[in-house]
């Protein structure tokens, strides 16, 4: 689905990632870990086309990112659900409208998906906050709303950047549960996190591969996790 081949990325001359290869096959579950500043977010951005590799090749759904125009990238985003670290929303729209935004911008009738939307909000525990505005939400609520928005289009790939950064243990388990269930439905999942206990919890439920970024390279983490 998403392939990085010998990819390097540098910000203004300083190389952050190099000789990096990664394949996200359909239905796989990956964790991406590493110290903060190691390039987890950059790697995710390479995976959804927000950044283009400075060298090497990135392919999204078989298409070379270099050959993709802005509209191609936009179209690929409809098949990739992204949970951003900072969970940006449209602050003037209510939570339920924000969650339904991917439907709105892709021209699908939100009314036809009302039941779907209601269920999804219930699943992430935001039914009562559906009409609130994003600035009124707590950190955890924002992350749940961001996850709901990422999956509403039923994407083939879900990329989540620290999805449990601001939520308590119980909620992080629920979010993980949600991602695991999505994975069982055949979705590819990649979660960037530095929360090792989350990774341990996941390992008992799903066959997850753990990738670790260190010294600008990516490596499969040891079995100790």
């Amino acid at each position, binding site marked *: 689905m998403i392939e990085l081949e010998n990819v390097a990325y540098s910000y203004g001359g300083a190389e952050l990632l190099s000789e990096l290869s990664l394949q996200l096959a359909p239905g796989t579950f990956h964790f991406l870990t590493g110290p903060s500043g190691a390039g987890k977010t950059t790697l995710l951005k390479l995976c959804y086309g*927000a*950044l283009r590799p400075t060298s090497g090749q990135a392919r999204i759904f078989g298409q070379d990112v270099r050959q993709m125009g*802005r*509209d191609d990238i*936009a*179209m*690929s*985003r*409809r098949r990739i659900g*992204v949970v*951003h670290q900072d969970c*940006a*929303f*449209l*602050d*003037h*729209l209510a939570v339920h*409208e924000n969650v339904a*935004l*991917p439907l*709105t*911008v*892709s021209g699908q009738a*939100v009314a036809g998906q009302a039941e779907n939307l209601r269920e999804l909000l219930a699943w992430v525990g935001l039914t009562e906050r559906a009409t609130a505005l994003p600035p009124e939400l707590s950190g955890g609520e924002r992350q749940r709303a961001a996850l709901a*928005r990422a999956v509403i*289009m039923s994407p083939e790939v879900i990329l989540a950047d620290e999805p449990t950064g601001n939520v308590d243990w119980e909620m992080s388990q629920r979010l993980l549960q949600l991602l695991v269930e999505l994975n069982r439905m055949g979705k590819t999942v990649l979660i960037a996190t530095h929360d090792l206990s989350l990774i341990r919890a996941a390992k008992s439920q799903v066959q997850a591969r753990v990738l670790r970024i260190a010294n600008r390279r990516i490596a499969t983490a040891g079995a100790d996790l």
Partner: protein
Amino acid sequence: MNQTLDTLRALGRGDKAADRVVPPTGFTARLTLFAAGAMAFLAVFALALSLAAGRLASNWGDELARSSTVRISAPAGQMVAQTSAALRLLQQTPGVASARALSEAEQQALLAPWFGPELPVDQLPVPQLIEVQETAQGYDPAGLRLRLQAEVPGAVLDDHARWRRPLAQAAGRLTLLGWVSAGLIAAAVGAMVTLAANAALAANAQVIAVLRLVGATDNYIARAFVRRFTLRALIGAAAGTALGVVAVLLMPSGGETAGFLTGLGFQGWHWVMPALIPPLAGAVAFAATAVAARRVLGGLS
């Protein structure tokens, strides 16, 4: 091109959801409305000026070009003979449709405004006037002047060109100035909308980033802005045009003696022109916002 067509189609159809993704901005919206209105108001006057001057130029051209005057100053005894000689000569001149000596009563009427009705014209050495109507082709004034000089020494031909030409020229310049003003106003509307659109795009950088993240195409994002600014320019210009037209209607009418200033206004089919201002302003705003949005969005990751 296709994108422009898409945008135009969406503009007509309207998309409530797309409109809502960009947060409403009360203050800049009012400023855009006001500026579009003020520009449309000015455009109405530029048009009125231009059209009135054009009308004036063509009126002068038409009316004065078709008539001229021969003035005969001769000793009392020769007046009749010279007049009939001049009339004969004029009737033989190609390009002259008719020539007619003014009667005493008519001459008196012409002089009355200056000397009063009591003036005994018949006792004064008033020159005899001959009114000459030209055919569409016109005559050769230089040739006629030479022949008159030879045969009727007291005759002076006045073909009105001397004072008609600078006036027609001035009116022509006024027309041009009016159109240049209208063009400048359109350009100013474009510049103003571009500035406003750029400000709106910059202020909504986060909104654009979120929309990109959830898979919105540039076209979709641009549409939300383009539609908004086009509607604002359209509404503002419609209000400004309406006010401008009312102001033109309220200009005091000069009636029969309408001169240039009192003739400022629209006549006949020219009334269509002010009605074109709002759609034109809308079109300018549409193009300006579309270009600004594509430039800003193209520069984003």
